[in-house]
């Protein structure tokens, strides 16, 4: 804090300096004075440089014709050929469409789920019941998709599944083969993903709710507000900032869909709605050794993620929240 005050004074005094010069001067001043603190920063910077930034030179293979024998540096440059091929492929467009649709469903239905769940949990008055429920809700998060996939298929099986058993008994309808129906598959996908992640997702929101000043609720009660009014006018506005930050972070992963999740539920009948970038990259890239082409797709995916993050951040800031930077 001291530094900030100093530099503000410094700036005010020497307004004739051009801004850039003064910034560098300030920085050097800081570094020289707090050299030991900055020295402590070196390992972290080194970690990011070595393990996060340096490997990114591998991204160049998206613009190359990569061969194992030539290596990353030795392979020949091909410019944007891989990207052109991606955009020209009719398959890629279908896959992008599937990907975007599933993302949209996930965003619309899965993102609000933990918020609603957290608010509901918060309203439970019995402490022990609340704790037990919370712990039980975390369990699905720790089950792997591979195991969950076969459980889901078992439950939804038209001949032996419990869901179809109930449907047939209650509504006297023909059993539905959910996993091979292009209508039901996306619904199963989104529901399974809510089931697995919603409980775990409440943690952050519950923490944010705990941070709300209880005086606000007391004041509302005195004014005659009921439970529902409190939720609407106190809880939700108070966790808006948290929601905004999580939304931005989510948007960064917009084009990413869990590979394991899709792969364990996918089958040939629903390819036209279930084939997504991740599975395409796996099929063509890892199995077909088309590393350059699939890197181009990966890079495209990251670029879209970056743009969405910037855009969401911008919108969130316009709406009066802090954003992430």
């Amino acid at each position: 804090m001291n530094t900030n005050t100093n530099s503000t004074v410094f700036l005010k005094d020497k307004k004739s300096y051009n801004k850039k010069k003064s910034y560098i001067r300030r920085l050097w001043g800081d570094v020289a004075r707090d050299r030991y603190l900055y020295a402590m920063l070196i390992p972290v910077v080194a970690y990011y440089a070595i393990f996060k930034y340096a490997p990114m030179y591998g991204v160049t293979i998206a613009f190359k014709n990569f061969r194992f024998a030539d290596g990353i540096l030795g392979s020949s440059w091909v410019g944007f050929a891989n990207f052109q091929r991606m955009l020209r492929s009719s398959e890629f467009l279908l896959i992008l469409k599937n990907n975007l649709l599933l993302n949209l469903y996930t965003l619309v239905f899965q993102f609000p789920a933990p918020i609603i769940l957290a608010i509901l949990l918060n309203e439970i008055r019995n402490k022990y019941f609340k704790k037990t429920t919370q712990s039980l809700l975390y369990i699905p998060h720790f089950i792997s998709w591979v195991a969950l996939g076969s459980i889901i298929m078992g439950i939804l099986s038209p001949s032996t599944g419990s869901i179809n058993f109930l449907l047939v008994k209650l509504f006297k309808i023909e059993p539905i083969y959910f996993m091979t129906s292009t209508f039901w598959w996306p619904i199963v996908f989104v529901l399974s993903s809510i089931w697995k992640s919603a409980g775990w997702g409440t943690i952050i929101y519950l923490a944010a709710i705990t941070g709300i000043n209880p005086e606000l609720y007391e004041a509302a009660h005195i004014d005659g507000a009921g439970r529902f009014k409190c939720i609407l006018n106190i809880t939700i506005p108070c966790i808006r900032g948290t929601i905004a930050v999580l939304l931005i972070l989510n948007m960064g992963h917009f084009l990413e869909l869990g590979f394991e999740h899709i792969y364990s539920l996918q089958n040939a009948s629903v390819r036209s709605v279930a084939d997504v970038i991740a599975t395409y990259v796996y099929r063509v890239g890892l199995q077909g050794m088309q590393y350059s082409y699939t890197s181009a797709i990966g890079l495209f995916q990251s670029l879209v993620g970056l743009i969405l993050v910037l855009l969401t951040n911008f919108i969130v800031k316009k709406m009066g929240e802090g954003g992430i930077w």
Partner: protein
Amino acid sequence: MKGKKISCIILCMALCLALSSCSRNGKNGQNYDDAANELSISIFDRGNVPASEGSYEDNRWSQFIEQETGIKITWVPVPRARSREALNTRFAAGTAPDLVVEFDRNFFVQLYNQGVLASVDGFIKDYSTEYKQYLEDNADLKQYVTFSDGKMYALTNRRAHVATRGVWVRKDWLDKLGLSMPTTNEELLDVLRVIVNSDPDGNGKKDTEGIVFNSNSAPFVFQDMFTCRDWYVEGDTVVNSRLTDRYEAYLTFVKTLYDEGLMYREYITDKTCQAQDQVWTSGNAAITWGAWGIGSSKYPSLVANIPSADIMPMEMVSTQFGRNGHFQDPPAQRYIALNNDIKNPKAAIKLLDWYLSDGWFPLTYGIEGEHYQLNDGVPVIIDKEKNKNELDYNIDYVLLTKATSNPTWFTKKYPADPFNQKLGYLEGLALETALKHTYRRDLPYTPDINEIVMFNAEFDPILEEITETVISKGAAMSPAQGMEKIRSEWVRLGGERIEQLYQQWYDENKSQFISKTE
């Protein structure tokens, strides 16, 4: 912190491809006498080395090979189901083993295109005696290991037999209902209709399945019945059979099975076939379709549940287009390729020579007196349980083999009690039945043209989806409509160009295609 710029780390999360370049070392007429007598070899991890035997890296048989050959071998386990991905990653990172073992020729073609395989012609010429002779005696194997520059890039041996797929029928049910073994596809449908509707297990419920599958190749196994799995040479033209009327007949046949409930309908979500295996072993299915030997290997658990059960292998039925055989493997078994970075190719060739001369027999049958006893030249198993534990896990350690298969051996190699004799009889019969009709394969291998590989990666999933829609979505799409869709998708994706490439490839290479030399 307000107003301070924080650098964006989102990109970091994007792509982290740490791929290092591979180094090449020259090998021009070196002697390798001073090279370390060491090799690393990939081995399929099927998770079946018993704890008492050690691990894939170190067990009875890895020690045996090391003792016999004097070569220090590092076995590099790769998960069987994802072996190609695992090996690809190792090649990309420059940590691939000296010897790479796989069954898939296309995988090696891809590695060859990536420039990481060493040509083996020179090594065989300079260092080999056994394999050199073996290759002369089995000249037809050369076409499988010779790639587009005319050099050999792998070693292989002839399979003991090519049987792969087969069908098993509940013979006791046929007898009980007075049915005979079906010989045509129509008869097969009729037999299934009778069985499914007449409650052969007599439990008063209509819960008998017609066909269950035991490998995740359903419903493609029926393509072999109609000869529509592959490209075939008709006259001198290469034809994609999946665009022909035979494919439509196949669609119609499977749709009938599905619609009438004559086959296990949920095959698509039972990817591991565990549920279907259970249906079969608990005696609730008339037919299990898939691996040729499954009936005999599941026989003990079937009779444990249903003591009166009896089973029979079934020949492939004929159709209006004639009779094809059950799917059979090409004669080349494992492919063993040498990494370009190999330090001591001489040791590798010596090891592979040892396999063909002395190694394959003990690795296949075990140690005399311990695992088998020679009787009339037939190695008779002493204790099946002991072999299961000590011998059966080593199948992937047998890199090259001269083993042959004789159906009469099956009864001879088992102990003399009636149960084992029955088992041996069934195995022998299954092999004979699976090999009775030759599976039609006009082209020895698929062309290694990148454009075709890429096209297949896009077209095959579409074909599969249309096929599934026709079969399982009732009236949504008839076989004729499905066929129309397949043909129009073929044209839309540029299939005509693929036909040209195929034809061109066939014309250029047909002189090199050799069928088995007898």
